[in-house]
């Protein structure tokens, strides 16, 4: 696969505060890379350097092979940025906003008109394109904010916490739009402190805390990395002590114990061993009325790695 963006050893200080400390990762074509971390972890500083808004103290960023910095022009043509805060002009219409930023990317004429039409359809604002954006709802503004980033068909789209302060309906529309982007082959850098968004959207996740990427990989890789196991609760009745004894020696089961409603197990890769586990329970005389599986999530990984919950920080 082709790396659209490569960041190496990025570091940035603000006075005595070391905001980003040796961050490095790559994003490939069609991949959605999530930068997951609590507020103040260094996500926005990192993407500001990747977007060429901020000069790195150390390290480098290449987009499409070209070095990027605040004065670079060529690599910025390949990128789109959707900032966390709304960055649209309230006294321009939705279409005028799109056309203005499109012109800054060198677009014009029929090409710009067609792309603006397309983006307005994608973000569901075609019917309101001639309205001043100050008359828009918060969700509509958010969608336009994203649409501007998509206008010039970037190879890399940077989305900085795009769902902060968004109503559930608009949030879902935004997440669906991002899913479509990776299908279309666009590399996406997605920063969030919402674990469920990262799990849903991202092919790979980098967990950032205190300016450092402390772990990186697919969700499964991260879970395995920290040794987290699936929690399987078998609800039912019968000789539960015997069931626990038998299941303790079943392949894949790391730990077994009785619970109020049945037995609870810690299982490595429950999807592979569930059939065997249920058969063993039945053979041991348990009447199974239900099964609940809790797979370890990125929240658990973050908790394991940092000793603190994502939302608490």
């Amino acid at each position: 696969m082709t790396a659209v963006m490569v960041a190496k050893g990025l570091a940035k200080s603000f006075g005595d505060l070391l905001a980003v400390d040796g961050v490095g990762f790559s994003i490939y074509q069609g991949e959605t890379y999530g930068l997951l971390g609590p507020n103040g972890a260094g996500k926005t500083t990192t993407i500001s350097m990747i977007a060429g808004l901020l000069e790195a103290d150390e390290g480098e960023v290449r987009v499409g092979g070209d070095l990027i910095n605040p004065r670079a022009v060529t690599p910025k043509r390949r990128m789109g940025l959707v900032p966390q805060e709304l960055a649209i002009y309230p006294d321009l219409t939705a279409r005028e906003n799109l056309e203005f930023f499109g012109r800054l990317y060198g677009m014009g004429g029929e090409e710009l008109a067609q792309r603006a039409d397309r983006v307005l359809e994608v973000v569901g604002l075609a019917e309101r394109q001639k309205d001043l954006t100050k008359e828009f709802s918060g969700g509509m503004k958010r969608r336009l904010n994203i649409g501007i980033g998509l206008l010039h068909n970037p190879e890399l789209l940077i989305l900085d916490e795009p769902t902060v302060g968004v109503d559930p309906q608009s949030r879902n529309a935004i997440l669906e739009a991002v899913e479509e982007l990776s299908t279309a082959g666009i590399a996406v850098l997605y920063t969030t402190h919402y674990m469920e968004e990262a799990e849903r959207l991202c092919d790979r996740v980098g967990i950032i805390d205190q300016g450092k990427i402390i772990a990186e990989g697919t969700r499964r890789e991260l879970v395995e990395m920290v040794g987290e196991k699936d929690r399987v609760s078998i609800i039912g009745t019968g000789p539960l002590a015997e069931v626990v004894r038998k299941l303790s020696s079943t392949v894949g089961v790391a730990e077994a114990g009785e619970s109020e409603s049945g037995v609870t197990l810690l299982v490595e890769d429950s999807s592979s061993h569930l059939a065997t586990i249920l058969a063993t329970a039945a053979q041991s005389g348990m009447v199974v009325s239900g099964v609940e599986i809790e797979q370890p999530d990125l929240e658990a990984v973050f908790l394991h790695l940092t000793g603190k919950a994502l939302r608490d920080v």
Partner: protein
Amino acid sequence: MRNVIHIAAKDLRLRIRDKSVFIIGLIAPLALAFIFNTVFGGAFGDEGTFSPDLGIVESEADQTNSTLERIASQLGGPWKTFADPAAAEAALDDGEVEAVFVVPDEFDSNLASGQIGAIEVLGAIDASTSTQIAAGIARNYANSLRTTQVAIASAISAGGNPTEIIPAAIEATDRSLISLGEIDADVRQLDTNTSTVAGMAMFFLLFTAQTGLLSLLEERRDGTLQRILATPTRPASVLAAKSIVSIVLGVFSLLVLIVAGIVLMDANWGNPLGVALLVIGGVLAAVGISAVTTGMAKTPEQAGNIQGIVATVLGLLGGAFFPIGQDGGILAQITALTPHYWFSRGLANLAGGQPASEAFGAVAWLLVIAGVTSAMAAVLTRRQVSV
């Protein structure tokens, strides 16, 4: 360069849409012109020339007295004679006259023996311009007499006929003195009212010129600057675009003020090319100063406050509210550091139908101010166009 135009066009569109361009560029200068017309009505009368109220203390130096009277009559103002210096001083105190010549009785007779005495000029405290004009006339007259004496002496020593040479030399001296154009350039000034109008125009311009640059801080606050800088647009291009908007609005508002002055007040600002050059120089200087104040601020509100202070201080020093620094000294040197002074100076130099070249010096100084402040602003605004 293309992005500079796109950003400037967008800013102007926003200014038109929120109607600030009409307020700043049209309504404010028209209101200012109306106020000028009401307060300083007739300031631009008589084609912009200034007519000082002059007088003379009677003496036995008839030849000099009549020459000075002839020069004063060319300036168009009233001419009064006083029996003695005390009467002249009383008239000055009462405002009946602005400056009075005191020629010693023996002034003319001393000329025959080759001596040139001193002509004293008494001036009213609140009429420094008229006093300087009177002093300039007296100085020029004395210089001309010296030149004449040298010419006569040279002609006679070369074998010339004194009966022919002396009348010819005196006639030539008289001719050279009856033109206001012969008065030293540093004395050729606008009258108080016109000078104040020019100073006020520059004072107002400092606020107009900040409009475009202020949007830099507004965009920074609103997050749109970050988005612009993420596009293939260099930070310097953003600064250039904002400066262009300031220049366009500044030129537009100043032109409205000038045209309104012509229409409403029958003003004659002077040679159109010279005025145009002064407008451009003045606007560039104002934009440079505004860029410095914008670069010093962190928020648009702070920039507005700083600009208000700077504009007021420069206005005071530059004579926007009342003329200062005409009598030399440290104030005169400080005044020369303000664009108000050079803008007024340039207009004064164009008064009385002078050619555009008379304004070149003032325009050059305005450009120097623009250059120095722009260089300072380039350093100060660097952090404004970064995230």
